[in-house]
């Protein structure tokens, strides 16, 4: 009888959902977009994903073994980082590029800070930005969709930045992913299926993605054309990595604010920076830089949006 008395500290009631389970479910929610990527760009996309995930997992395992810490490879966070990195790469990159990016993501983006929960920046985006700065040629050469023979082509966003109207690409093409781009960002429909799953299960809240996308849409409508209030905001929302970034990378628990108020500030900031980079910056796409810059601002947002203790 005495053995049945357990003495433990609060909280005494908790959900069965663990970090591990959430990580694997987020990975699962990314599967439709990956399948769409393979369908659109061919088997090269599958190779990029496999290499990035394998390199991320091996790096995490090796670093934790070398530093004699608990091996937490099976918690799914390294798999998720590798997969997100692959989703941010074009489908026909050389085989070493996803490997180098994933090693950098895990080693410099995550383990240097102490592992899961300690990192300041989203590891997958750290890897992507590193690759972008080091090998811009490979990172901006995109395959034409549905052709499977490595015909390169400019992204719709590059055309939008240059102020050209989008030719030959309808909104439906953008929505279904029939356009050049990175593996996981093109098929908005598949991304929305995964995002709906995460929202319905309440693993992510609507605050960051909606404020991010709304801000981007509004600002690109106002400033996106030569005259005010004439921008092609639908194309701005549907092209580039905005939907992928807003639902799956800006909402990373570790690197985004804790309170809903803070998350709104975070999303609006991301949208603002994205539009500024897209319309006036040197790069055609600004989603990854926007999220990373706001990651850096997250501790400050948390400090100013801390809930007031009742009565104080």
């Amino acid at each position: 009888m005495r053995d049945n008395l357990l003495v433990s500290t609060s909280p005494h009631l908790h959900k069965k959902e663990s970090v591990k389970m959430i990580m694997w479910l987020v990975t699962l929610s990314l599967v439709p977009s990956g399948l769409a990527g393979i369908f659109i760009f061919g088997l090269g996309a599958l190779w990029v994903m496999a290499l990035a995930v394998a390199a991320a997992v091996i790096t995490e395992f090796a670093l934790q073994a070398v530093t004699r810490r608990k091996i937490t490879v099976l918690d799914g966070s390294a798999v998720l980082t590798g997969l997100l990195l692959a989703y941010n790469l074009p489908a026909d990159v050389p085989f070493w590029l996803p490997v180098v990016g994933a090693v950098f993501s895990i080693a410099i983006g995550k383990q240097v800070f102490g592992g899961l929960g300690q990192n300041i920046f989203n590891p997958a985006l750290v890897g992507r930005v590193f690759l972008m700065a080091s090998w811009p040629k490979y990172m901006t050469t995109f395959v034409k969709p549905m052709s499977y023979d490595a015909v390169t082509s400019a992204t719709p966003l590059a055309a939008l930045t240059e102020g050209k109207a989008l030719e030959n690409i309808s909104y439906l093409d953008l929505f279904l992913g029939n356009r050049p781009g990175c593996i996981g960002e093109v098929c908005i429909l598949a991304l929305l299926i995964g995002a709906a799953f995460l929202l319905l299960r309440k693993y992510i809240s609507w605050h960051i993605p909606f404020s991010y996308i709304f801000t981007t849409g509004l600002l690109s409508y106002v400033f996106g054309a030569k005259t005010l209030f004439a921008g092609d905001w639908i194309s701005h929302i549907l092209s580039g990595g905005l939907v992928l970034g807003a639902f799956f990378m800006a909402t990373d628990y570790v690197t985004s604010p804790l309170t809903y108020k803070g998350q709104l500030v975070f999303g609006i900031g991301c949208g603002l920076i994205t539009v500024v980079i897209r319309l006036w910056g040197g790069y055609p796409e600004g989603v990854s830089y926007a999220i990373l810059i706001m990651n850096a601002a997250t501790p400050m947002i948390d400090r100013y949006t801390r809930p007031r203790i009742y009565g104080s």
Partner: protein
Amino acid sequence: MKSLIKEFSKGITVLNPTFGLILGLCPTLAVSTSLFNAVGMGVAATFVLVFSNLIISALRNFIPARIRLPSYIVIIATFVTVCELGIKAYLPGLSKSLGIFIPLIVVNCIIMARAEAFASRNRILPSIFDGLGMGVGFTLGIAIIAFIRELLGSGSIAGIGLLKSNEFILVMILAPGALLTMGLLIALSRLMGLTKR
């Protein structure tokens, strides 16, 4: 003699300006894109350090405490000007690639820190050895960073190309590469116990 060696060696190990004191980061980050530039910068800074320490130490009882910093600046600026004109005359190539960073040695915080923390309170000989040690430590630090950045970023050592390829890590010769290399080397030196936590 033993204490002089100690004054010299502390600048290379425990109080290394780059990895221990984390001073003089501006030239360290800006000039470490190639080994040749880095060593040139290190030698120039060492020259200024040794002579400014010497003069400041010799004048330490004559400089009024309230205007000591302007006085140090005047002394340091004198040697920086000597150094700058010398490099311009004899090494015009180096002068061109280092550019503004040679005159900027005037405001290098290693030199101000050693003047304030050491030379103004110690006798001449220890001050010279302190300056020499700090200068060698700075040169070593910036040279190690430059070696890594040049090798990874442009595949060469001191301007001599090793590999004919275009797959180098471009980011290493850009500003983020400087900060990355620097941060990882500081972590490594602390892990190995070379510099203090």
